């Protein structure tokens, strides 16, 4: 790890200020990606601005039609929340299966979405559920938020404050673990919404999380979902899975998600 200046503001307003005055800052949420990357010397920010002291970014509330989760809420807190379990049980289950207990106790929903790891679980939930990402500057729909692998519409000094999930009629997440890392080799989040079915796929694509519109149409038409319409050349291939296997798994996981949503 290279040397850096550490800031721990106590409010999101102060955090934004610290970001604005630093040379090459990084926001530290739960640190589950940033810290290993820094330890490997693959990232060398001049300043690290921790949001750990921003209590205004933590918390979960639900009004029956919308579930709101503060950006610094940990995966463990989401998994254990009665509000989440009641409103969107699939989201609680997803959070409870991220990484391991240590990761879930440190990692946060805002950090996960801002990082947009192509194999992370949360982006598929945000996209399939049609979430709204609330930041220090604006509100972004999930459809406009994820712009590519490890890329989002966030500006350099923009901080996610909360995520609003419209409560769906039903939802389920089916994940096929990378056997080694336990990230999603392929994860499919299906949500039955008032606007019709929404299906988001994580782990599979070179471009990060994406909506599988083809599969949404199959479901809307009452057909069993399959992945025949997914272009294989858009999918990832690595030592764990070829693009063909990932394409196949998208179909299997989509079927399982639809079945689980009931």
């Amino acid at each position, binding site marked *: *790890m*290279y040397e850096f200046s550490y800031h721990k503001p106590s409010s999101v307003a102060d955090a934004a200020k610290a970001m604005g005055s630093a040379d090459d800052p990084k926001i530290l949420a739960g640190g589950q990606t940033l810290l290993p990357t820094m330890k*490997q010397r693959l990232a060398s920010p001049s300043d690290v601005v921790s949001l750990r002291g921003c209590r205004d970014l933590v918390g979960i509330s639900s009004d029956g039609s919308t579930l709101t989760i503060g950006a610094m809420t940990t995966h463990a807190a989401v998994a254990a929340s009665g509000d989440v379990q009641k409103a969107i049980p699939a989201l609680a289950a997803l959070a409870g299966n991220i990484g391991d207990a240590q990761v879930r106790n440190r990692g946060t929903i805002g950090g996960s979405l801002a990082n947009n790891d192509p194999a992370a679980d949360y982006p598929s939930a945000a996209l399939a559920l049609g979430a709204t990402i609330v930041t220090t500057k604006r509100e972004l729909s999930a459809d406009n938020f994820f712009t590519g692998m490890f890329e989002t519409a966030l500006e350099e000094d923009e901080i996610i404050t909360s995520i609003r999930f419209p409560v769906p009629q039903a939802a389920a997440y089916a994940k*096929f673990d990378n*056997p*080694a*890392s336990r*990230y999603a080799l392929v994860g499919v989040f299906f949500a039955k919404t008032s606007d019709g079915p929404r299906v988001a796929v994580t782990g599979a694509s070179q471009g990060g999380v994406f909506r599988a519109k083809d599969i949404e149409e199959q479901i809307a038409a009452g057909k069993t979902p399959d992945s025949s319409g997914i272009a294989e050349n858009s999918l990832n291939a690595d*030592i*764990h*899975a*070829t693009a063909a*296997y990932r394409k*196949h*798994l998208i179909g*299997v996981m989509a079927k399982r998600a639809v079945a689980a949503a009931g």
Partner: protein
Amino acid sequence: MSATGIGASVKRKEDFRFLTGRGNYTDDINQPNQTYAYILRSPHAHAKIKGIDTAAAKSASGVVAVFTGEDMQVGSIPCGWGVNNKDGSPMNEPFHPALAQGKVRHVGDQVAVVIAETYSQAKDAAELIEVDYEELPAVTNSEKAIAPGAPLVHDDAAPNNMCYDWELGDEAEVDAEFKNAAHVVSIDLTNNRLVPNAMEPRAAIGDYNKGTGEYTLYTTSQNPHVIRLLMGAFVLQLPEHKLRVVAPDVGGGFGSKIYHYAEEAIVTWAAGKVRRPIKWTAERSESFLSDAHGRDHISHADLALDKDGKFLGLKVYTKANMGAYLSTFSTCVPTYLYATLLAGVYTTPKIYVNVKAIFTNTVPVDAYRGAGRPEATYLLERLVTKAAKQLGMDQVAIRQKNFIPADAFPYQTPVALQYDSGNYEATLKKAMELSKWDEFPQRKAEAAKRGKLRGIGISTYLEACGIAPSAVVGSLGARAGLFESANVRVHPTGSVSIYTGSHSHGQGHETTFAQLVSETLGIPLENINIEHGDTNRIAFGMGTYGSRSLAVGGEAIMKALGKVVDKASKIAAHLMEASVEDVEFKDGKFTVAGTDKEVDFGTVALTAYVPHNYPHETLEPGLEENAFYDPMNFTYPGGCHICEVEIDPDTGTTQIVGMTAVDDVGRVINPMIVEGQIHGGLAQGIGQALLESCEYDDSGQLTSGSYMDYCMPRADNLPNFMATTESTLCAHNSLGVKGCGEVGAIGSPPAVINAVLDALHELGVEDISMPATPQKIWQAIQAASMPAAAE
């Protein structure tokens, strides 16, 4: 049986220390004025070093010194075992430098060392070192490495990248058996390369005392005396009395901490230069790139059978990947720990084995839990099951037909070993019973209703361990003896310290060895300490590997304890005014037959050190004895592993739903520790079969260099094990013990793969390679279900 003696499941004495964070590992040790080393490693698999500029690094903040191969001109890191080619000529043994000399040969090869006040400073400064590399083409696969035109890892020092081309047996004789055969069954398989992944990364601290001229090395080793010998005599030319090697608590080894590594020599040598202690601790990524890897065999085998399925002859051709350099025991693994095991539990009369050991641009390969024996077992047990299928025989029946019968011991195999004891029918029957083998068809049918493919696989295996008779291994090329030493020191108040040359790095020696003492001397466990891991405190030691600690180290302790009891009996006879022939010793008390005279062990111990009333004319004071023990033969654990799996055909995922292990490990001293050892071995065997794969890309980069990509077995990958023992006693040691550390990793991989193939049989899948990942299984199902290609 006493509550703390032989056969008791005593809780491990060392666990309080380990579980409460009070262990003392190498990285926990700090010396006054200590510095820290960072090793700069090659990013290339194969490159010439045209120049190294260390000027900027040397002047960086906190830097004490920077050394390269040019500075460190020392001896070659030695290989401990010479193997001869078919024609009798010696193997190619290229120079193995501690720091690269003009060339790097694998990603992770040591190029320079930076020594600084802090580790971060050393690492920062290393980034300022400019190495001018001229990249060369690399080769990582052993078959490709011996193809014409392949890049040469050692240039002229190993033409064709060949280390040796070795054989065992008479090929023409075996060919003659094949002419008479009714059936020949052939198989091609790969035994996948593994990364050992001990929980504690390697670490070393070098120290030099200018006042005494003595060097000290603290290191994560399974055998500190061996390191003292290899590094002292061969690399740094330091005599034993000026070099102390300490291996304190060590957090797992699995073989990977047997070997003498460059970093040990670097910190010891450099400590003499900078006159300050130097600590180096591997980062996990460095462990992947520098701990000796395991396995990596490519083999072809042919089995000749008569019309009834009786084995007539076996021919095996193996290419063993040595990696870039010869690690300490690398050369004996695919020969004397592999080829000699290819009779297995069977009466195959004629066997021929050819092994080519081949250099590649990869991390050196050496012994990893089982070492050679898992490779032999996997080949044999896959082949036997394939033979059963090909001949339409039952896979159990074909094994039983060829078993060495229980009354045939001692049994001389055609591949050099003489088995002393065993009962393969007994372990097979018990395993079949415990796994409810006969009811498998019902379970398969039930699984099918749930859409799952269920399969069952078996492995009846044998291993040779308790390594080893010195005379035998010496005749086979070992450059060291393989005895063990023990010292029993009875203190004046009757407590006992044992100094053993075995080294515990998770095996529970502090408990098992103490049980031997408790049983023999009748004293409680808390009065016994087991000391190990320090060349200045232990007379000598060959260390712990090859399941040898109890069968060799434990026997040495028993031998020394016998001497203690002999002397103590004489003291007791004197105290009781009796003839020593009439003295009996039992449960810690000396008695005289037919009288009520009695003296306890503590009184005798005190008398030995306060010898007021003492037979001075015939006995020296004190009560302390040494023994060295060299075994007569290897020991031969064996047994039967049965695995049952369910495969999800939609994803290719395998779930192990049953794992039964019935092992003959000889006499069991602590059943709980034995079961723990077997569980650990099974986890690693299952890891190899289903999860773990060390992968290189064509340029020689390790693509599975972290836990993000290298899949270690986790609890949810494993079923509840049904592990038990069904033992025959070793015929040539006093305890009757064989060894239990490796059986799990040796017997299980073929049982798992045979089960996977059994599950996939109905779909037409006939082969799968390890690890049988979901993707590979899915691909195999796809390939088998494709209509045959137009021909």
